[in-house]
C-alpha cells in the first residue's frame, strides 16, 4: 500500500486525509494553545525538567524561567499552523514540520491523560476513554508516516561533527 503522505518534486508535502480527519485534527490542535499559555496541568508533559538532582533545584528554576515562554511559543506556533493549514492541499517544508510538532504535542498530551503504558491493550469500546484512545492511535499512525517521509532525506551516515 502506498503511503498517504508524499513529498512532491517541488518540495511540497501532500497528506491524503479525509475531510473528517482534518476537522478532528484542527479541533484538537485548536484546544491546546490556551492550555499551553495558562500552563494547564494537562500539558505538563511538554515541560520536562532539565535538572533533576536535589542540589540543582535553583538551576532548574533558572532553566524554566529561561526557556518556558520560548517552549510555549514554539508549540503554539506549530499548533496554529496546523489549524490554519488543516484543509490545505499541500504543505511547505516548514508547515509540514509544524504539523509534525503539533501532532507530537497532541500525542503527548493525550497519552499522558490516557496514562498509556507498555504493552497497553486498546480499551473496550464501551470504555469512556475508547474514543480518545483511538484518536491517540490515529495521531501515532500519522506521526509514524510523517517521520518515515522526513527520515528519507536525512543522510544515513549523519552529518560531519559539529555541523548543525
Amino acid at each position: 500500500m502506498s503511503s498517504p503522505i508524499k513529498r512532491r518534486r517541488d518540495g511540497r508535502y501532500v497528506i491524503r486525509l479525509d475531510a473528517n480527519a482534518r476537522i478532528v485534527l484542527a479541533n484538537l490542535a485548536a484546544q491546546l494553545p490556551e492550555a499551553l499559555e495558562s500552563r494547564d496541568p494537562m500539558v505538563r508533559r511538554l515541560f520536562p525538567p532539565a535538572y533533576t538532582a536535589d542540589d540543582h533545584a535553583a538551576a532548574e528554576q533558572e532553566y524554566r524561567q529561561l526557556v518556558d515562554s520560548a517552549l510555549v511559543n514554539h508549540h503554539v506556533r506549530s499548533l496554529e499552523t496546523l489549524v490554519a493549514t488543516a484543509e490545505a492541499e499541500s504543505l511547505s517544508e516548514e508547515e509540514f514540520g509544524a504539523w509534525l510538532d503539533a501532532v507530537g504535542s497532541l500525542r503527548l498530551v493525550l497519552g499522558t491523560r490516557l496514562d498509556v503504558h507498555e504493552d497497553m491493550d486498546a480499551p473496550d469500546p464501551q470504555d469512556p476513554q475508547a474514543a480518545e484512545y483511538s484518536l491517540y492511535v490515529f495521531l501515532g499512525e500519522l506521526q509514524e508516516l510523517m517521520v518515515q517521509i522526513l527520515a528519507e532525506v536525512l543522510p544515513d551516515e549523519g552529518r560531519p561533527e559539529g555541523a548543525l
Partner: protein
Amino acid sequence: MTPGGVVPPETAPTGDIRTIVDQDTTSDRPWLVIVWNDPINLMSFVTFVLQKLFGYSKEKATSLMLDIHTKGRAVVSSGTRDRAELDVYRLHEHGLWATMEQSG
C-alpha cells in the same frame, strides 16, 4: 517509547556526593545530556530526532534509541553546561524527556 516503555522518572537518580562537595573540580567535568525512555514517543520518532538534532548516523541514532528503550536511558551528548542546556532545550522542543547531569 512505543512499542513498550516505562514511565518516565519524575526525578533522576541523584548524583555522586562529590558533585556537591568537591567544588574545585566541579566546573571541569562535562555535562551529560540524557534521554529517558517514555511510554508515548515512537521509536522511529526518537531515532529521527537524534539524527536531525545531532547529525548522528542512522546506525548510531538507532543504537542510542535502543539503549533508551531497553536500559531506560542513554547519554546522547555531552559538553559544557551551556551546550548541554541548549541540547536539552532542543530535545524538549521535540517532546523528548531529556535531563542533564554532570559526569561523576
